């Protein structure tokens, strides 16, 4: 980094053109010095947020425009348009996906994750263009899919393209995709916190402090852009939500159980049908989105047009008690069917909005039934609808943190945090116990990829230093003592290597042979400190991952494990054998538990 120079030299004459050029050059060279890679990456994150926000604004306008142009402004039932439009649009989308934009099928979350872990952050810019056009047509024509996941992929694609243009380092380029993904999702959802959490939970798949700042900056920047164009109106008009008595948590727990079961049904239906349809001959893929459109359109034609498209208006109406519980329950079931059909057909589009829709309808239905049998329950239909949204998010997408914050961010009401947490916990646990692999992981595995996940990380038992730690040895030598005294102490010991406590701090080792040799050489009157190497042993702490011990075990026979509060206090030792033995026993357990299939 070059030394910073003053931005403007006060003594320099700035009136002549030559002087002005000189000042500009100096300013540029100063800026060059300031923008080292970390700072530059943060600034770049803001630009990614801006560009993603602009793209998502256009994407939303496209969907709205397509909807108006294809289905008309007024909702209709029993109109031929309802099944003709999504069918024909399905044909167009299929042709584009098959011929022009391969690789834009599905939601886009997995592709973004694959870019991060497999393709070094590379997402073709054509993906953004294709996703924009095809998802816009599909959702606008009424396919039961949402705009959030495509927005996420569009954001990631823009970020990746920008990173490649700027030829930033491979390490940073890999991180561009999640930064763009957060921006795209935040813009689509108008909820930056949920977007950040989702990207961490689902796209990055692990907590990483290094990227958090960039993800947050891009998410906030994109939300600011979207709000400046489309206003800060929330997705839903939130009704009054109340939670008064702790006993009502039982009602929310029941909702959580119902949501968990619905999540499993939804995930299993997608998991079952997707590979079946993918296995069909390639030419059928030209027609699968059209058939899906026809089926979804038929549901609309038969009196339930609410299931078509993202369905935010219907969620809003459910939140304000516009549907009876039977209608709500039916809409939840039909939406599962419609979304399964749309998604497994390979139509580009997301699952966020359908998940929220199913959760909202299920929440409203369960809430209404509960309130019918227990009229003293104080939660309004709107409260159950909101909690229901979180429940499906937790159960189906398996992002428990995001699910809680999403409800809070959308509702702006912290009073329902406890019901949300209780219901989501039940839903998440039921989903985990009945569907071992989360939906996004299932989809990536069906595509032949295995990517890390936060759930996997949460379940992973990390070996720590304390697991391989041996007790404090009976004989610890002191560097302050004479060699002959130390030699006498170890003469009858079964061990061959001994730990030496250095003064004033630090540790070293000495072998019995070494002490014997020094004694024979007549150096018995010397202190051990004077004859040992001045280089101290590295020390470890009990809570460190055992991997950190691997760096030392080949170089040192013993490694002291000390207390974090007092480095002179020895907690134990690790040796090469103890570390390897621990890894060996772990591997043996893992091999024993391997699924024979």
């Amino acid at each position, binding site marked *: 980094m070059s030394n910073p120079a003053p931005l403007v030299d006060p003594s320099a004459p700035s009136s002549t053109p030559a002087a002005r050029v000189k000042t500009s050059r100096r300013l*540029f060279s100063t800026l060059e010095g300031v*923008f080292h890679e970390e700072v530059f990456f943060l600034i770049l994150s803001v630009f990614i947020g801006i560009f993603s926000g602009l793209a998502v*604004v256009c994407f939303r306008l496209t969907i*709205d425009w397509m909807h108006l142009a294809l289905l008309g*402004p*007024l*909702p209709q039932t029993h109109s031929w348009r309802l099944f003709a439009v999504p069918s024909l649009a399905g044909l167009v989308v299929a042709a584009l996906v098959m011929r022009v934009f391969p690789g834009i099928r599905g939601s886009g979350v997995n592709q973004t994750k694959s870019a991060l872990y497999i393709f070094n952050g590379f997402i073709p810019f054509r993906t953004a263009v294709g996703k924009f056009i095809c998802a816009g047509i599909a959702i606008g024509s009424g396919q039961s899919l949402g705009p959030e996941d495509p927005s996420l992929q569009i954001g990631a694609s823009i970020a990746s393209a920008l990173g490649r243009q700027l030829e930033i380092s491979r390490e940073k380029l890999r991180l561009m995709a999640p930064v763009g993904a957060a921006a795209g999702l935040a813009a689509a959802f108008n909820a930056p916190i949920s977007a950040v959490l989702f990207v961490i939970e689902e796209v990055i798949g692990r907590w990483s402090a290094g990227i958090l700042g960039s993800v947050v900056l891009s998410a906030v920047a994109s939300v600011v852009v979207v709000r400046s*164009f489309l206003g800060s*109106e929330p997705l839903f008009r939130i009704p009054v939500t109340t939670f008064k008595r702790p006993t009502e948590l039982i009602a929310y727990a029941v909702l959580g159980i119902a949501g968990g079961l619905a999540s499993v049904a939804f995930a299993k239906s997608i998991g079952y049908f997707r590979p079946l349809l993918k296995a069909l001959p390639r030419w059928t893929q030209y027609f699968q989105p059209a058939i899906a459109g026809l089926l979804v359109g038929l549901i609309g034609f038969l009196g339930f047009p609410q299931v078509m498209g993202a369905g935010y208006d219907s969620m809003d109406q459910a939140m304000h008690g516009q549907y009876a519980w039977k209608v709500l329950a039916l809409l939840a079931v039909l939406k599962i069917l419609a979304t399964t059909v749309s998604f497994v057909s390979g139509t580009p589009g997301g699952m966020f909005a359908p998940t929220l829709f199913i959760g909202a309808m299920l929440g409203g239905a369960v809430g209404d039934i509960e309130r019918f049998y227990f009229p003293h329950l104080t939660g309004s239909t709107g409260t159950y609808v909101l909690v229901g949204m979180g429940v499906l998010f937790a159960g189906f997408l398996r992002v428990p943190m995001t699910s809680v914050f999403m409800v809070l961010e959308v509702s702006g009401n912290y009073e329902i945090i406890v019901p949300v947490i209780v219901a989501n916990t039940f839903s998440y646990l039921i989903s985990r116990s009945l569907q071992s692999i989360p939906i996004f992981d299932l989809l990536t595995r069906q595509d032949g990829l295995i990517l890390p996940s936060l759930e996997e990380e949460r379940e992973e038992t990390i070996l720590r230093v304390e697991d391989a730690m041996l007790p404090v040895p009976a004989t610890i030598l002191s560097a302050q003592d004479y060699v002959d005294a130390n030699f006498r102490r170890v003469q009858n010991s079964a061990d061959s290597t001994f730990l030496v406590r250095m003064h004033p701090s630090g540790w070293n080792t000495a072998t019995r042979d070494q002490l014997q040799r020094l004694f024979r050489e007549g150096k018995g009157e010397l202190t051990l400190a004077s004859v040992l190497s001045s280089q101290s042993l590295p020390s470890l702490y009990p809570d460190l991952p055992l991997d950190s011990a691997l760096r030392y075990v080949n170089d040192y026979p013993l490694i002291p494990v000390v207390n974090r509060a007092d480095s002179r206090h020895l907690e134990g030792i690790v040796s090469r054998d103890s570390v390897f033995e621990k890894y060996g026993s772990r591997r043996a357990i893992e091999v024993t538990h391997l699924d024979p299939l």
Partner: protein
Amino acid sequence: MSWQMPKLIPRSAPMILLVLTLAAATGFAAVSHLVSRYTANQQARGRKLYALGLESAKASHYDDAIAAFRAALTCDPTNSQYQLSLARALRDSNVPRRLDEAESYLIALWQRTPQDAAVNLALARVAAHRGSIEDATRYYHNAMYGVWSSDLDANRNKARIELIQFLLKQGARAQADSELIALAAALPPDPAAHLQTAQLFQQALDYPGALAQYEEALHLDPGNSTALAGAGETAYHSGNYSSAQRYLRSAVNANPADAESRQLLASTDLVLLANPFHSHISDAERNRRINAAFSQAENRLTACAQQAGIDLTKTDLTNNNLKNTAPASALPGLQARWQLAKPDLNLLRSPAETDLPDSIMDVVFQIEEQTAATCGQPQGLDLALLLISQKREAAGQ
């Protein structure tokens, strides 16, 4: 297809930022243009849908109106007028489930413009639909003292009248009465307004208040037959039979087809002719009226007993507390009292017996009250006697 994006951005960090800033600015400008064109199109579409919704609402096709207003709102989500109209249509559709949504739209509007009288009025109507007196009163008051786009006084009075009608419907007469007093104080010099207020006073059973409003209307429009009839009726109900006779006679003269006023006038005439306690009659006339009332009471008692199948000979003279006795079982006792009082008629001429008219008429009044309770509202002279009885009782209280 392998297509590589050309390298467009230079390598120097400041230049990169400059290019990115320019690109962002260009993007902003382009998207702004796009959004403003799209918004203009959407607003135009919204206006069409809104007009469609208004037509449907006017024709009471609320489902169509709601769909049109919803569609208009998707075109222009922040338009207050659309939201207000949608809320009104949701409320007026008379589907209880829709009230919640109407209220949520209105509350959102109210939070933006709490002083808006139209929004407060709509919220008041939602609260009135729910039967919530407290909320409705609060919002109606907000509407009255809120900001109206035009006709401040007229709109304010309309809102107050609506509140009064709601309160009367809910049986909150005391609250309605206080609102009526406030309304009466702010009325313009318009006979129709005074007539409407008088009718509300009448519904609130505040007959003096109603009479004052009818008289005010007559002051502004002396020949108004509705006001004359109303004034006569309220004077009649408040026991002011002289005024009632005057107004009702004028009402019948002004509108001979007014059968109700004619009937009330007949009753009023009978009351004035039968009342033995009238101050401007001679002793002889008073005694004549008492005698007539006494014999009328006996006829009424006998007829009523026959109608109800009661044997008047089964007399219980020990029961003096007629008011706490079932009307039908009180009739034999009254017959006995009537028999006991009959000789007293001859003593009426005696100047020493000053309490006698009252005691005789007390028997008459008791007979009329109990027979009315047993056999229903009487007609003619019996009705007149009953009214005199009620007036005496009210004066005594």
